[in-house]
C-alpha cells in the first residue's frame, strides 16, 4: 500500500527541522520519543492478529439478501504489531500514573489497581444483564451495597444507579423533578442556574424542556441569596446549584436557599461534581437538596480512561424517589436483593417511575471499582480523604497567592480547589501560556477559563492523593511561570517546547474537518 494522508506526512518523512533540534534523525524518532503512523498506514486487510478457522465457502448460509458483497476497508495488525502500536501511542499521553493532574472540577485522583482487579472478577465482568435474576444475586448485591453507601454519605432517601455519566445523572435528576411537578399538575417553565455553573447544567435543563435563567453571584463568589429569593415564584421548577461551587467555595447559605426554593414550590438540584470536598463532613440531604448526581469517576476513583466511561448515580430526596428511573435494586428484610423492572415495579410500590434511561442496569464495571474504593477507605478514610483534599488545595492557594491573583483569596479558606487568575500578567500573556508552560515542567495544566465569572481563571484541584513533595514541586513551577507571565517572557507564548507536539492548529481542524482517514492515491 502506498498511501499518504491529507497533511502529506507519512512514516519516514523527515519532520520539521526545529523539532529535530541540533541532532536530526532519519526516522523522526528521538530515542524514547517515537513517532507512530496511523493504523491505516501500517496494516493490511490480509493481516490478522487472531487465530480463527478459515471460513468454508461451501457452508450453508442463511444470511439472506443483505449478505455482504463489498469490502469494508479495515486493516489488521499481527499481535506484536498491535502491542507496539498502542504502546507507542500510550507514551504520547499524560496520565495520573505519570504525575499531578490538577484539573479543577475534575478530581483526578489516583486510580487504585485493586479496583481494576475486582472489576475483572468473572462474577462481575462475565455476566449478562439479562441472565435469570437467581444467577446474578451477587452482582445485584454490589449495586445495592454501593447504593447504601451513597445514600448514607449524602443523607438522602434513595438513589438511581443507572445513569451512565455525570451529565446523564443530571438529566435523570431533572427528569425526576419534572415528573414530580407533572404529577401534581404544576406547570413550571424556568430553571435557575448560576453563571458559574458547569455548561452541562443549562444544557441539561434545556434538554429537560426548561428555559434557563442565570442567578447572579454576589461579590464573594457565592449565590446572591436575596437576588435568588426575589426571582423565585410559581414559574420556577428548580434551582441548580453546585456546592462546593466552581469558585472552590462552600455555599454557606445552601440551607436557606433550599428552604426558599421549597417554600416557592420548586426543587433543588445540586451538581455533585465537587462532592470530594465534603464527603463525610457534610451531607447534602441535611442542606435540603432534592437531587444530586455523584461522579464515580471523580469522587470514587474509577478511571477517566481518556474521556470515559463515567458513571453518574443520582441520590434523591423522599419527594422525588417515587419518580426515579427503572431498573433499580431493592433489598428485602431477609437480605435478598431484587431487580425492579417495568413488570414488577407495582410489587415494590414504584408506580410513578418516569421510565428507563438506558438499556440495562448502569455502569456495573464502575460500581465494582467504586465499591472497592469505598470499602478500602471505610467511613473514616473517606472523611480523611476529603480533609486532605481541602488541605492540599489550601496549601497551594497560600503558597501561590503572593505571586498570583486569587480572586476570592480573602474570602476565607477554599474547599478542594484553588481559584487563581491572570490579573497582573504582562500585556499579551495569558492563562493559556501558563498552562502550556506547565506542560514543559512535566505537569498537566489546570482547568482554564472556567468558571466564566473570573477573567483568565485558573482552577487548581490537587486531590488528596498527592504528596507534599509533589505539591512543593508544582508550587515551584507555578511561581516561576507566574514570574515569567508577569515579565512578558515571549518563550511562554510558544510553549510547550518539550511535548510530543507543539501547539496544534485548532482553527485548521475546524474549518475543513478531516474526521476519518482517507486513502489518497500517491501521484
Amino acid at each position, binding site marked *: 500500500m502506498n498511501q499518504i*494522508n491529507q497533511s502529506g506526512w507519512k512514516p519516514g518523512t523527515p519532520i520539521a527541522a526545529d523539532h529535530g533540534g541540533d541532532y536530526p534523525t532519519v526516522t523522526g524518532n528521538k530515542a524514547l520519543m517515537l513517532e507512530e503512523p*496511523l493504523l491505516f498506514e501500517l*496494516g493490511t*486487510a490480509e493481516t*490478522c492478529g487472531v487465530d*480463527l478457522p478459515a471460513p468454508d465457502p461451501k457452508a450453508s448460509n442463511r*444470511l439472506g439478501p443483505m449478505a455482504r458483497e463489498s469490502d469494508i*476497508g479495515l486493516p*489488521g*495488525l499481527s*499481535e506484536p504489531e*498491535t502491542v507496539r*502500536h498502542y*504502546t507507542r*501511542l*500510550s507514551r504520547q*499521553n499524560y496520565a*495520573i*500514573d*505519570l504525575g499531578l493532574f490538577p484539573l479543577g472540577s475534575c478530581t483526578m485522583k489516583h486510580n487504585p489497581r485493586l479496583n481494576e482487579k*475486582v472489576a475483572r472478577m468473572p*462474577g462481575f465482568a*462475565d455476566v449478562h444483564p439479562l441472565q435469570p435474576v437467581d444467577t*446474578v*444475586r451477587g452482582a445485584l*448485591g454490589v449495586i445495592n451495597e454501593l447504593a447504601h453507601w451513597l445514600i448514607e*454519605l449524602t443523607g438522602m432517601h434513595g438513589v438511581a444507579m443507572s445513569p*451512565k455519566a*455525570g451529565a446523564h445523572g443530571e438529566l435523570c435528576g431533572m427528569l425526576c423533578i419534572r415528573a414530580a411537578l407533572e404529577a401534581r399538575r404544576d406547570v413550571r417553565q424556568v430553571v435557575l442556574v448560576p453563571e458559574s455553573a458547569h*455548561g452541562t447544567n*443549562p444544557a441539561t435543563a434545556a434538554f429537560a424542556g426548561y428555559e*434557563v435563567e442565570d442567578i447572579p453571584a454576589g461579590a464573594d463568589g457565592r449565590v446572591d441569596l436575596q437576588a435568588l429569593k426575589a426571582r423565585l415564584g410559581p414559574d420556577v421548577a428548580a434551582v441548580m446549584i453546585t456546592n462546593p461551587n466552581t469558585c472552590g467555595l462552600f455555599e454557606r447559605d445552601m*440551607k436557606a436557599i433550599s428552604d426558599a426554593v421549597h417554600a416557592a414550590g420548586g426543587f433543588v438540584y445540586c451538581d455533585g461534581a465537587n462532592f470530594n470536598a*465534603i464527603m*463525610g463532613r*457534610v451531607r447534602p440531604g441535611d*442542606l435540603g437538596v432534592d437531587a444530586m448526581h455523584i461522579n464515580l469517576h471523580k469522587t470514587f*476513583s474509577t478511571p*477517566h480512561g*481518556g*474521556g*470515559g466511561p463515567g458513571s453518574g448515580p443520582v441520590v434523591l430526596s423522599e419527594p422525588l424517589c417515587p419518580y426515579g428511573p427503572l431498573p433499580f435494586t431493592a433489598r428485602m428484610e431477609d437480605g435478598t436483593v431484587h431487580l425492579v423492572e417495568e413488570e414488577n415495579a407495582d410489587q415494590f410500590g414504584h408506580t410513578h417511575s418516569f421510565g*428507563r*434511561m*438506558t438499556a*440495562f442496569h*448502569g455502569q456495573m464495571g464502575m460500581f465494582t471499582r467504586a465499591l472497592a474504593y469505598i*470499602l478500602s477507605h471505610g*467511613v473514616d*478514610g473517606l*472523611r480523611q480523604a476529603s480533609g486532605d483534599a481541602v488541605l492540599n488545595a489550601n*496549601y497551594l492557594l497560600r*503558597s501561590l497567592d503572593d505571586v498570583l491573583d486569587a480572586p476570592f483569596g480573602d474570602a476565607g479558606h477554599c474547599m478542594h480547589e484553588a481559584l487563581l487568575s491572570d490579573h497582573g500578567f504582562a500585556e499579551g500573556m495569558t492563562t493559556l501560556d501558563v498552562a502550556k508552560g506547565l506542560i514543559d515542567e512535566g505537569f498537566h495544566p489546570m482547568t482554564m477559563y472556567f468558571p466564566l465569572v473570573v477573567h483568565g481563571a485558573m482552577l487548581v484541584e490537587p486531590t*488528596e*492523593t498527592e504528596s507534599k513533595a509533589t505539591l512543593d514541586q508544582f508550587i515551584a513551577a507555578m511561581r516561576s511561570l507566574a514570574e515569567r507571565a508577569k515579565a512578558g517572557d515571549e518563550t511562554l507564548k510558544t510553549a510547550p517546547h518539550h511535548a510530543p507536539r*507543539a501547539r*496544534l492548529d485548532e482553527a485548521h481542524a475546524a474549518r475543513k474537518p*478531516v*474526521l*476519518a482517514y482517507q486513502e489518497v492515491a500517491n501521484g
Partner: protein
Amino acid sequence: MRYLPLTDADRGAMLERIGAPSIDALFADVPAEHYLDGPIEGLPAHASEMAVERHMRQLSKQNLAAADAPFFLGAGAYRHHVPATVDHVTQRGEFLTAYTPYQPEIAQGTLQMLFEFQTQVARLYGCAIANASMYDGSTACWEAIVMAARLTKRHKALMSSGVHPHYVSVAQTMAHFTPGHIDYDLPVLCSNAGDDKLIARIDEETSCVVVHYPDVMGRIPDLPKIAEATHAAGALLIVVNTEPVALGALEAPGKLGADIVVGEGQALGVGLQFGGPYLGLFAITNPKHVRQMPGRLCGETVDADGKRGFVLTLSTREQHIRREKATSNICTNSGLCALAFSVHMTLLGEKGLAALAAENHRLACLAADRLAQVPGVNVLNDVFFNEFTLVLDTETRPLVRELADKGVLAGVSLGRLFPDGDGRENGLLVTLTETNTEEDIETLAVALQEALAEGDLA
C-alpha cells in the same frame, strides 16, 4: 490509609503555612449545625486490600459467570472471546488514567486512537463520519432520533417493532420530555421483519424511521426497500446495530440507504459486564450533517512545526460552549471502551472480522438445525446472523429459569423483554458466538428436550 500520602508531620507543616489550627478549621464555611464532627455512624471503617478483595470475591461467587455454563444469551449484549492483548492495552496507565484529551500536545495517544476508532466505525457502518463514541447503544439511538428531528424539523419518530424494547423504552422516556413523540407497535412472532407494515406507517410527519439490523428476534430487515420509502417521504433512516460482528457478514447499513447508523459496540473488546459500561457508536453518511451530530469528534490538523497531529474539534456543538443550545448535554464518551473496541478490531482486521462472522453464523446454523429437531420447538427465522428465535408451545421464562438451575444459560426469553404476553412469552432468543462449542449445542438441545418432556414448568 494506603491511598493517602500525607503524613501527620506534612499536615502540620501545611496547616502552619495556611495559618489554620486543624483540618476541621478549613471547613469553617460549613454551618456548624450541619458539620459532621466524626465518621458517619453505622458504616464500616477502612479495610486492607486483602479484606476488600475477599469481600468482593464472595459477591462475585454468587453469580453464574458465562464462562462456567453453556451460554446462549444475546439480545443486545454479546459474549465474544476478547484477546488478552485488548485488556493489556486498556490497563496501560497512560490510557486508563488519562483525562479527556483537551490538551492535545500531551494527549496524542488518546487522540490518534480516537481518530483511528472513528475511521474504523465509519467504515464498519459504511458511513462518512463517526463520532468518538457515546454512552451506549440505547442512548445513541435516542440521540439519533433527536438529530433527525433537528434536521427534518419534524417530530414523529417511527420505530420498527423489531427494535430492542429497551431501546424503545429509552426513546419513549426521553420523548415524553420533548416536543417529539414515538410511533411504535409491539412485534408479533412471525418470520418476516414486518417491513411492509412499517413502510405503510410512514407519513409526512415522520422525521425518521428507526430499524434494528439484525432485529431483536434476529430477523434481517430489507434496508434498501425501507430506505427508499423513508426518503420518498422526506424522512431519515436510522439503523441500529447491536452486534458489530454481524457486519462482517452483512452489508453495511450506510451502503444500503441509512442516513444515521448507531449501535452498541460492546461485542468487540468490552465484554458483558452485567450491562455496562458499554460503547455507543454513532455515524452519519452525509458529511454535511456533521454540525448537527452529537458527541465528541477528533479531527486531523498540524502543529506549529507542521507535524501531523489530532485535536478534539467542532466542539462549539457541545455543552461546555453552547450551554443550553448544545446538540446534547453529553460531556463524556466511552473512551476506554472505544479503545478496547479499536484494539480488538485492529487485531481482527477485515480478514479476521469476516472469519469471526463466518464462524458465528456456522454455529448458529448448526444450532438452529439441531434445536428444530427437539419436539415442540420451532425456529421462527428464515434468515438470521448469529441469533434466532425459537417458538415453543409454552412460556419460556420458567423454562429459562429451570435450565439455569441445571447450569445451562439457554437464551433470553421474549417474555422477559416483552412482559405483556400476547404470544411473545413463548419466544426464546438464542445466540451463538465463537465461544460456543458443538457440545454446548448438544447440551442445550438435550436439556431443552428433557425440560419440555417433564412439562411441569410452573
